């Protein structure tokens, strides 16, 4: 960023952890996450909000972090792909992606998983149309999406199974 702006302190919660960074207010949140915080799981695919590889959850809503100015993150609660698993315990969506072949080259996968997690938080039992719509902001060039759809359905099953009380 040029000299025209001064860095400002930005305080936010990232994956449950309080973080403070000095960043240019109009820097892309994507760059702040990747470069200042070294959270490189969030990817850049297009830099113009088309591909969804940089998707994160900002205050619970899915956003393309390449389009979000860093200053918007001040005071925000952020979840990135690094915060989706609990330690070594994978989220149901992650397990389902592994089982169903939802990840091939893997570059769209973090954003796609964020989109799927976001979708299932809004619609725990989505219809096929809701799945397609929910993932339509995330481009994948490897899979033809079929196995990603299957992974979302499988994640619902895994989540429901977990909810059934043990007898």
């Amino acid at each position, binding site marked *: *960023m*040029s000299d025209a702006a001064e860095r400002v302190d930005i305080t936010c919660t990232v994956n449950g952890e309080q973080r403070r960074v000095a960043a240019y207010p109009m820097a892309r949140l994507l760059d702040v996450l*990747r470069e200042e915080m070294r*959270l*490189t*799981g*969030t*990817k*850049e*695919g*297009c*830099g*113009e909000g*088309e*591909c969804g*590889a940089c998707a994160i959850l900002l205050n619970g809503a899915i956003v393309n972090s390449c389009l979000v100015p860093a200053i918007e993150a001040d005071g925000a609660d952020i979840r*990135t*792909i*690094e915060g*989706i*698993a609990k330690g070594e315990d*994978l989220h149901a969506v*992650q397990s389902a*992606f*592994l*089982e*169903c*072949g939802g*990840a*091939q*080259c*893997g*570059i*769209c*996968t*973090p954003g796609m*998983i964020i989109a799927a997690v976001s979708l299932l938080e809004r619609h725990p039992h989505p219809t096929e149309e809701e*799945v*397609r*719509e929910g*993932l*339509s902001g*995330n*481009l*994948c*060039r*490897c*899979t*033809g*999406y*079929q*196995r*990603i*759809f299957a992974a979302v359905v499988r994640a619902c099953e895994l989540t429901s199974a977990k909810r059934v009380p043990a007898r």
Partner: protein
Amino acid sequence: MDEKYFGHSVPRKEGRDKVTGRAQYVDDLTFPDMLHGVTVRSSIARGRIRGIHFGEGIPWSDFTIVTAADIPGKNEIALIEHDQPCLAAELIHHPEEPIVLLAHPDRYLLEEARRAVQIDVEPLPAVFSIEDSLAKRPVIFGDDNIFKSYRVEKGDVDSAWAQADVIVEGEYRTGAQEQLYIENQGMIAKASPEDGVTVWGSLQCPYYVHKALVVLFGLSSEKIRVIQAETGGGFGGKEEYPSMIAAHAALLAWKSGKPVKIVYDRAEDMVATTKRHPSRTRHRTGVTREGKLVAMDIDFVIDGGAYATLSAVVLSRGTIHAAGPYVCPNVRIRSQAVATNAPPHGAFRGFGAPQSIFALERHLDQVARAVNLTPEEFRRRNFIRKRQTTATGQIVGEDVNLGALLDRAFRESDYDAKRERFARENPSATVKRGIGFSSFMHGAGFTGSGEVYLASVVEIEATKEGTVRVLAASTEIGQGTNTIFSQIAAEALGIGYDRIEIVRPDTGAVPNSGPTVASRTSMVVGKLVEEAALELKRKLLESGLLCDACTEDEFARACRRYIETRGPLRARSQYEPPPGLRWDDATYSGDAYGAYAWAVYVAEVAVDTVTFEARVTDFVAVQEVGKVIHPVLAAGQIEGGVAQAIGLALYENVAWREGRMANGQMTNYIMPTAMDVPPIRVFFEEQPYPFGPHGAKGIGELPMDGPAPAILNAIENATGVSVNEIPATPEVLMEAMTSKAGVLV
């Protein structure tokens, strides 16, 4: 079967890293003191460089600046021909030609600096179409603009026309297509005269990059090291172009003495790197009244762009696949790759075959109509069978049964009933429905004597802990190399899948198992993995340290004792051609490929007569691929290829302006999204191929070949309009479907 891993969908080897965001792609890597690099390019398609001006207001002394004069060795990107410079020194041949490189620690300042460099160019007349290139308007390469031409002759086409009752002619065109891997291309280099050059990057073929850097720096091969980072898709787009970016990053690192990272943004990646070759195919086909092919005369031309790069090889594959899986006694295929002033076109999944197969499979629907047969009945009468000969004179040794594939594809897609229903419903419908198909084959591995020339090598090494490392240059780019190789090695050694480690491709550590291209990784290199693993096991058995049916613990103990008493436990295998394969490069005849995958694909479409949008509403892909090693990965390959080919058929339009891509953004270059893909239903028939690992054949490119003609055949079924160019965008369909007055025809 008692196989433990073959045919089972084990978890992807590097899957956990990918779903947790831990996988490290090139842009995720960083080095202390690292600079960023950018490329200053021409903006003019053809011309002579008069000067380079560094504008005001930039602290140029803080920048590392590289031009052609800084290249220590030869100014070329070595590949097949050595005609493409690394940096243009005098002449410019396309509008994205790299001329100056800049490096600086601050990416933002670097971008300002890039814009402040002015290249003063004296423009020269340029060529932007196949027609102008063939007409030598003007000559821009050699004395005729032809990079390469082939001629395939079978029988006697000229005298065969007399036997034909009907002759059908047609012309077919396919556009450029961007690979559009979601990870943009990038490289990081460290370089110095003492330590040589090391690069890390997103790439398919480590030894291609290695070869290019050896020539560029004039260093001995052990001074150059190429390491693959996790790679976010390739599809051919990371076959040859990574050599260019590696060269640029390495030159900046060499001059600055610091590590340099060049990662393209999406716009630069789309406009500057390679795309699928645009093509024009002309068919002249003679048939009898009974619907038997008697003569096929095919003229196939591809636009190679400004430098030869891989065009000769792309042309070769397109040529060999141009006559398809049909038997015809008289075939002539003439083909040419021509020069234009666009950036060089390059490898893209299918490699010329999708272009020539599109033409053939569209054309055969026209031929069928001319002899009053249904498309399926016409094809059934001409399908090639075992012991019959292809256009290149290859006698089919496989027990191919395309009729059975067609039967299954029609059953799964409910083809007959849908044809009937659509014919009934369409006259009164605004959205017209249609169904169409294509039948085709794709040869796996390098063409002709290519695999013999590559002479690929794989090594396997056991550790004292009883784990086994596979050493190969074959890259994981999403298609599943790591997983497939692990399955093969585990099965051959009788140990657990988790006991296999795939060593990251690094030219300093792995032998050259050839490039990761041409649907060859599972079939050809996988076979080498199997042979090396069996050799390693044989060594252990012969040492007496291991009995045949061993447990994993016994295997580990045997490895430890072997290594402690005899030294390293390694085995190596090198490619040997299957017996009896023969190929003649001079006449372009013989056994073009060791094996083919065979397929029939059915597409169902809906064409909106108000918006002229076509959508694919259902898709059935039936193929015979030898034995399936991993059902989930194999189906994933087919589904992904079909989706890319739907893009090729309907959406993906490169808008050219004087050799330059004008729509280099995901906003206006449209690839299929989750909303655009139909259910893609994949079915495998399995006939083991004796020379593939466990009978497997290559499948990576196959699914790119068939969808486009099936979709356009379906559009014709829906609308009655014959559209012979792709992408069939709404503009193209409107043009075809409306008369001059703008009403539906």
